[in-house]
């Protein structure tokens, strides 16, 4: 039977504030999954803690709500145990770039085949408006009543330096292009990060109009296999580019683990007797 958007909607109604950017992102994810015709029962979404982290509850997929900042290693665990599933990690700017910032590098080194949706609203939403690593210099928040004094963390160049195998930035209030980028990310084999800018309505530092003014799609002929060009455009702040900066094929975690098993078993009982698949099935 042909699926509809409804198949990806959870029975739990979203609890975000009216006008929150996360609503649009949720629909874009659902639409991307529908377009790719992925069965909801073969998807696990792992979320960190934050308003954005609630997202996994509102998708009709299996869902695992992790600890604050650890969606990425938790998603790694899911993927390692069930490589056949489509695995998402979802979290906010505080979750992913603050408390959990250290994990991205290491998931990237393993090239875990997961889709990390990092939803940046430049604020700690759930805890009601404190400074996040991406709050702009000088703005006033609950924990920066005299203005943020730290430099803003620039995420895309970091992901590129970590050699994440798929790096994109998306405008959360432009569902059409977001859906397109998400489809590419989900289809990518390896670790993908889609860094989504999303306005928080309650503690507003971004809004749809402002985003439209500062964002611009990468040039049509942007070479996604050229890291230096990607880095140069990632550092650009006028305009701030959206789209896929970089994409590369490399062995995934699954491939790498299989390689180890094959290598070790070659020396003993003739390699193909053992496979990662068998190891995992033995746990089933």
């Amino acid at each position, binding site marked *: 039977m042909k699926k509809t958007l409804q198949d990806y909607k959870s029975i739990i109604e979203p609890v975000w504030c009216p006008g929150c950017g996360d609503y649009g992102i949720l629909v874009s994810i659902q639409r991307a999954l529908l377009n790719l015709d992925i069965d909801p029962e073969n998807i696990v979404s792992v979320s960190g803690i934050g308003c954005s982290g609630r997202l996994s509850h509102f998708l009709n997929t299996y869902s695992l709500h992790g600890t604050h900042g650890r969606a990425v290693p938790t998603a790694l665990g899911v993927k390692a145990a069930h490589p056949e599933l489509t695995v998402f990690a979802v979290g906010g700017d505080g979750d992913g770039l603050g*408390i959990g*910032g250290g994990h991205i590098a290491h998931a990237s080194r393993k090239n875990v085949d997961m889709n990390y949706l990092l939803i940046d609203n430049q604020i700690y939403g759930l805890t009601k408006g404190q400074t996040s690593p991406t709050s702009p210099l000088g703005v006033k928040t609950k*924990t920066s009543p005299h203005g943020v004094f730290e430099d803003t963390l620039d995420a895309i160049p970091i992901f590129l330096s970590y050699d994440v195998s798929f790096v994109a930035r998306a405008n959360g209030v432009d569902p059409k292009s977001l859906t397109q980028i998400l489809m590419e990310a989900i289809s990518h084999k390896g670790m993908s990060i889609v860094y989504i800018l999303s306005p928080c309505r309650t503690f507003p530092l971004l809004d749809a109009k402002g985003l439209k003014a500062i964002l611009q799609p990468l040039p049509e002929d942007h070479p996604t296999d050229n890291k230096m060009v990607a880095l140069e455009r990632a550092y650009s702040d006028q305009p701030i580019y959206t789209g896929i900066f970089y994409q590369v094929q490399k062995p995934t975690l699954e491939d790498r683990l299989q390689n180890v098993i094959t290598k070790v078993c070659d020396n003993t009982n003739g390699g193909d007797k053992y496979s990662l698949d068998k190891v995992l099935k033995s746990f089933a």
Partner: protein
Amino acid sequence: MKEEKNKKGEARLMKGNEALAEAAIRADIDAYFGYPITPQSEILEYLEREIPKRHGLVIQAESEVASINMIYGAAGAGARVMTSSSSPGISLMQEGLSYIASAQLPCLVANVVRGGPGLGTIQPSQGDYFQAVKGGGHGDYHLIVLAPASVQEMADFVFDGFRLAEKYRNPAMILTDGALGQMMEKVILPEEGSLKKVETPWATTGKPASRDHNIITSLFIQPEKMEEVNHELQEKYKKIQSEVRFEEIQIKDAEIVLVAFGLSSRICQKTVDLAREKGLKVGLLRPITLYPFPFKRLNELAEQVNFMMSVEMNAGQMVQDVKLAVEGKVPVYFKGRMGGMIPTPEDVLEEIESVLDNEKVLQD
């Protein structure tokens, strides 16, 4: 113990978290490092707003792991420092606290406890009693633990916490909960500047020619040396026992003693009144320090009463220490709610009555 402090200053209506934060400024902290988490973000927010106008500095860390290690660094450099968080964040700090305890550095940590386990709820709880009083992290160490039961004590215990932490060069914790953090009450704040700074010759403050360099560490690779350090710590914990504090309410003629700390003790105070109206001789012992714990006093009371009941907002944690204290002399019962739920004075009275009914059945 309260009278001497309460004589000065005018009463202000404040939230528990804000009273604690204001007291920290008045206690002349050099620095506060913290990370937002409900129900205690007001502490960080208050200090972010107020400290720059006065003295000291405040930094929002990128995580609680970072906060506690900033504390480790600044305490090691001889600064008077403090952090605060709520349950999940305090769990993240345990490794650092174990190191700080081993390196024998003073600092103050406030845990505004919420219901757990896990991410749990933002409602008040006392589910972190074990974590606070038994060490919490790895190895044989203890925090000095104070349990306020009012907004007044949220403020006062900042001073008491630092006093004890600095006297013993040991981390101290204020174990409170979301309700005390959020509730508004009248408070007379401790006087600014009344907590003298202590000498810190052990600190990493830069080396004058006259002095060997200081090394602050918790690494003692030789087991003989590690055991020596452990002995030293244990000796210290023995001395700390003399700092035990508790409050007794209607204990003199009590046949039944409720044992409760923090918010639960306030509930039990009402239960005592309700019970007395019914002619039941119920009293209350409120541990003010949870480490050190009033083992001795409870043991004495066991000679006098028919039974004790520990009342907690958890599945029964302090009750184990009460049982240890009474050494089987009298039965110790437990009444608690979990997950952010709070028992009412009537719930506790009902539990007392049901124990009495059961005992009667047994005697008939």
